[in-house]
């Protein structure tokens, strides 16, 4: 844990409690961007955690950024915080100016096709991306793509130049289709991407979802425990029934496992690991999401099935995030094939190294 982390966690939690209420989340689903929440985070530097101070960030490392996302996930914050942190990181690596306000980034799916083309005195970017987080609400989108010669390029475009078709995920978070109709870009906004390759962005994207999911899982555990203690049937709290207790224990187990898996993946990645820990963590939270959402909804009875109760803010996010940046099955397939291409020793050294 870095020295700023406890303070960061406190500040972020306080802001979320004040500005990320049930009403704010509901309004966001109806299309109202939570500007107050965003401003409060921006003012306290939360939106540029993990970016070095000398280039306009507030310092901190990947662990700090991920602990912030855990909180964001826990409160179901309806903002592109993960995208903004990731986009700023890319900008900083590419030595492009850090942009203000919320950001999104492309590609959002690993089959999105984005291509850069040199024109006479500038560049042009074209392509189409789907399921782009908050495209409609941001001013700029960081774009990452290849030239026909295979060179990787980083830049950013104004959303004024894009064609955006609105869409949403299961949690009502904006996931828009974005067309880049051969947008002209000045040379000074173009950078060759050397430090951060496409795969790396994908990995970091998966890490953000792992952290968000670990946070959402934590919230579900808290909600469910509270409900099990309050709701009475047959003259006693339902949490006193052994069948319910057993389910709560399973829920707690999956949440604990996911929390430590998410933390361990960040720590391994920061120490120069490859994508294996990320794969293992994304699989763990994905598998946990299934068990935990089942149990949480079962314990909440019909109440948890209503719009009124906040449980669905977290469960619908899990059902969305579990498929973003690779579902547990996609990661498992990749990991499994890596294992099977090597020897059986591979698993053991993967687990113990």
């Amino acid at each position: 844990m870095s020295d700023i982390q406890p303070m960061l966690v406190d500040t972020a939690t306080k802001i979320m409690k004040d500005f990320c209420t049930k009403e704010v989340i509901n309004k966001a689903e109806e299309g109202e961007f939570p500007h107050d929440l965003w401003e409060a985070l921006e003012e306290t530097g939360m939106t540029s955690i993990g970016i070095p101070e000398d280039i306009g960030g507030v310092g901190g490392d990947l662990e700090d950024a991920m602990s912030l996302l855990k909180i964001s996930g826990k409160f179901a914050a309806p903002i592109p915080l993960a995208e903004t942190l990731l986009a700023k990181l890319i900008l900083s690596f590419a030595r492009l100016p850090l942009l203000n306000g919320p950001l999104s980034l492309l590609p959002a799916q690993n089959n999105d096709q984005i291509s850069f083309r040199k024109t006479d005195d500038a560049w042009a970017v074209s392509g189409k991306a789907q399921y782009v987080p908050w495209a409609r609400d941001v001013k700029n989108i960081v774009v990452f793509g290849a030239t026909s010669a295979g060179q990787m390029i980083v830049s950013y475009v104004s959303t004024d130049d894009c064609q955006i078709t609105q869409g949403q995920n299961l949690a009502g978070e904006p996931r828009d289709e974005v067309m880049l109709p051969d947008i002209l870009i000045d040379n000074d906004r173009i950078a060759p991407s050397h430090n951060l390759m496409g795969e790396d962005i994908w990995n970091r994207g998966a890490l953000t979802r792992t952290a968000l999911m670990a946070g959402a899982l934590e919230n579900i555990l808290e909600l469910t425990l509270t409900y099990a203690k309050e709701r009475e049937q047959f003259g006693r709290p339902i949490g006193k029934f052994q069948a319910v207790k057993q389910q709560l224990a399973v829920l707690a187990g999956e949440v604990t496992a996911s929390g430590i898996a998410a933390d361990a993946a960040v720590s391994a990645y920061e120490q120069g690991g490859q994508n294996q820990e990320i794969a293992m963590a994304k699989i763990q939270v994905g598998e946990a999401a299934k068990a935990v959402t089942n149990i949480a909804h079962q314990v909440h009875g019909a109440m948890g099935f209503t719009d009124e109760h906040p449980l669905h803010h977290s469960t619908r996010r899990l059902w969305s995030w579990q498929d973003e940046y690779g579902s547990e099955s996609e990661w498992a397939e990749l990991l499994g094939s890596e294992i099977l291409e090597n020897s059986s020793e591979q698993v053991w050294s993967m687990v113990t190294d």
Partner: protein
Amino acid sequence: MLKELELPIVDLPKETENLREEVRSFLSAELHNESFTTRSDSWLSGFSADFSRKLGERGWLGMTWPKKYGGHERTAFERFVVTEELLAAGAPVAAHWFADRQTGPLLLNYGTEYQRQTLLPRIVRGELFFAIGLSEPNSGSDLASISTRAKKSGNKWVINGSKIWSSGAHHAHYIVVLLRTATHGEKKHEGLSQMIVDLSAPGVTVRPIYLMTGEHHFNEVIFEDVEISEGMIVGEVGGGWKQSMAELAYERSGPERFLSTYPLLKELINQLSETSGQHANIKIGKLASRLWTLRCMSLGVAGLLEKGDSPNIAASLVKDLGTQFEKDVIDVARELIPSRPSMNAPTKFETLLAESILHAPGFTLRGGTTEILRSIIARGIGV
């Protein structure tokens, strides 16, 4: 996060890498000499006094204990590394298992100086084995209901009663017995004590109970007017319950709670190949993820124990999730490779599978059943 469920990330210190290499090369040499064959669930079924002695010679027993009792004053993490490597290789560690894992720490916490000096050095050398006497014919999950009792007679105690399911008591030298030294008042957890009983003492009968595989693992241990000197009481008279509970975090969170079928997983991967296809990849990837997660949790608990905390809830979670994983490995193995498991099958995969299937019912019973663990967890998180 609930405090009971918070686990630290433990990065093993660099020094442990050399130790791990040492253990691995020792194990591959032993396998090469055919001093043992890899088995599933080897900490239960792999009894070899010779092998335990070899581990003792290498300084891999009583690793964390003080030097004055023969220990090696190494860290809990170094012990973790040795333990997980032995289990992953399916090495025969059953002989010394309880003494090294449980009895030693128990004596270091509560034992008398005399007990420590006479018993610990021999455990460290791999010469002295212990059995655990908790369960009784009428007391399983409801452990506090035990009825084996000791009555004071002069400066001796006289024990009557019986213990059951005592693993390895037919090989062990001593058994640590939880028994009643006073009638309980309001609370049945009161009036319990722990005593060390010599299994060759007059009045002790060790009767085999065979597993469904035919293996002799369990025993019933019967005590008829067995005389024990006061010096063999561990800790306080009447403090037995608290002392036994303190052992649980160690007992429930170690790598043996998720590695019992690791040898089968390893052989499964050997049998599969990169052409096995998407389904196999997904299944193996998921198992690997769970294995890694469990190890992170187990190490996290070890980290807390090292700091002097007693993370009982987290330890129970490791055991619950870990033993489910041990069973999942079997299901995936059967799903991916059609086979005819048998204890004397011609292939290693089929023998390991047979061992795993036939031992699996015990995984979720021993050391506290799944249901009991989940009740403990639920209570721990406030319901």
